[in-house]
Each structure stands twice: as C-alpha cells, then as structure tokens.
C-alpha cells in the first residue's frame, strides 16, 4: 500500500508532519496553547479558568480568520481595482 509508506517511515519529533495541505488547522492548538498560558498568568481568580481559555481561543481564531479575509479582499479585489 503506497499511501501508508510516509506514515510508516515517519519518526515523531525527528521528522516533520506532512501538513502542507491542512497547515491552517494548526491555528486552533496554537490559539488554545496561548490562551492556556495567558489566562493562567492574567486571571486573578482561576474559578472560571477553562471558560476564559475557550473564549480567548475563539477570539484569537476568529481574529486571525478576519485578518485573513481582510487581506484576501485587499490583495485579490481592492488592489487590482486601484492599480490594474
């Protein structure tokens, strides 16, 4: 089975993961990790810690998606209209 060859040859931590097609999905764990640390440092009271972490994760992810859309609009639509 040729499709299994890359998986069988992959050594965790020594070889990179083949995420060239789905690299943007790493935004979620990145945002979650940042939120875990930031909220642990920032919050005075840790009672509602995980709720704050999930909210911040969503805020980061949505913010980056909004920036991506804005950049796409600027580069694909607005700039060609201004300077064809």
């Amino acid at each position, binding site marked *: 089975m040729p499709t299994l060859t890359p998986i069988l040859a992959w050594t965790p931590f020594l070889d990179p993961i083949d995420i060239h097609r789905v690299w943007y999905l790493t935004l979620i764990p990145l945002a979650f*990790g*940042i939120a875990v640390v930031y909220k642990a440092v920032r919050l005075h009271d840790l009672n509602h810690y995980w709720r704050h972490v999930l909210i911040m994760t969503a805020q980061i992810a949505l913010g980056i998606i909004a920036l991506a859309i804005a950049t796409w609009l600027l580069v694909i639509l607005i700039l060609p209209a201004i300077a064809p």
Partner: protein
Amino acid sequence: MSTPHDLHTGFDLLAGLAAAALPGAGHALAGDPKRGLRIGAGVLGLFTAGLLIGGIDCVDRAEDGWWFIPQAMIGPAAFAVDHYHQNFLKKPRPTNPGFQPPPNSPRITPAPGPGQTYTKSLGKPNDIGILFTSIAGMLNLIVVIDAAFPTRRRPR
C-alpha cells in the same frame, strides 16, 4: 478570591529563576501550584507541539540563530533539544555515516541521506514548528516576569 501567589509583593528572584529553569515552577514555588501546573502544561505543550509538527530541525541554534533567541526563553529544555540536534543528529557518527554538513547553503538539504537519522524540515511544517516553539518561549518570558514581579496581577 486572591491566590497565595498574589499575596507576595515586590521582587521574587527565586521564583523568577525557577520559572526560567522550568515553565510554571516559579508560580508553584511561590505557593500557587495550580497556576504553575497550567502554565507549565501550556508552555511545554506548545513547545512539544512545535517539535512534533516541524521535527527537531525547528530548534537549531547553528542554522536558525535568530529564531533560537525566543526559543531559548523556554529554558534548559530548548538548549537540551538543540544540544541533541547538533551533537547527535548532525555530526557524522558511526550510526550516521552518510550525513554531510551543508557547505554554504545550510537550508538546502531536504533529503535524508543514507544513514541520516532525521529529515530536514522545510515549508509550512518548518514555519509552524518554529512559530509554536518561539511563541512558547516568548510566553515563558511573560511567565518569568510575572513570577518575579507577582504584584503586577490586578483583580478585576
């Protein structure tokens, strides 16, 4: 509700040093193990995720010196990973006889040569791995400052 860590005031050198040595240890040492555990899990989790995504090649003081500066803020873990990378994976060894260090263009060696024990990380996996590990290091700088100056946290 104030946590034990908030009761400290001024400058806590020991907590700062502990946080620099091991993420989260500073807060645990200052009497807030719950906070320290979450910080440690977050920082080391990001660092480990970066290594998993981009491979050990993401931490490379020799070839990516500028990126190693934020990565080094993790503490001894980053230096240990780099030491292993430089001395056990890059150098020609009996178990790694085919590896030749790149002469002038160190980044153009994607193919694992015969006997080479790891794959050079390129493209998106390399970018994302470096991003994860560098952000983990920069977050740990915030953690060290917070551990050393605990009075900066304010109740809402």
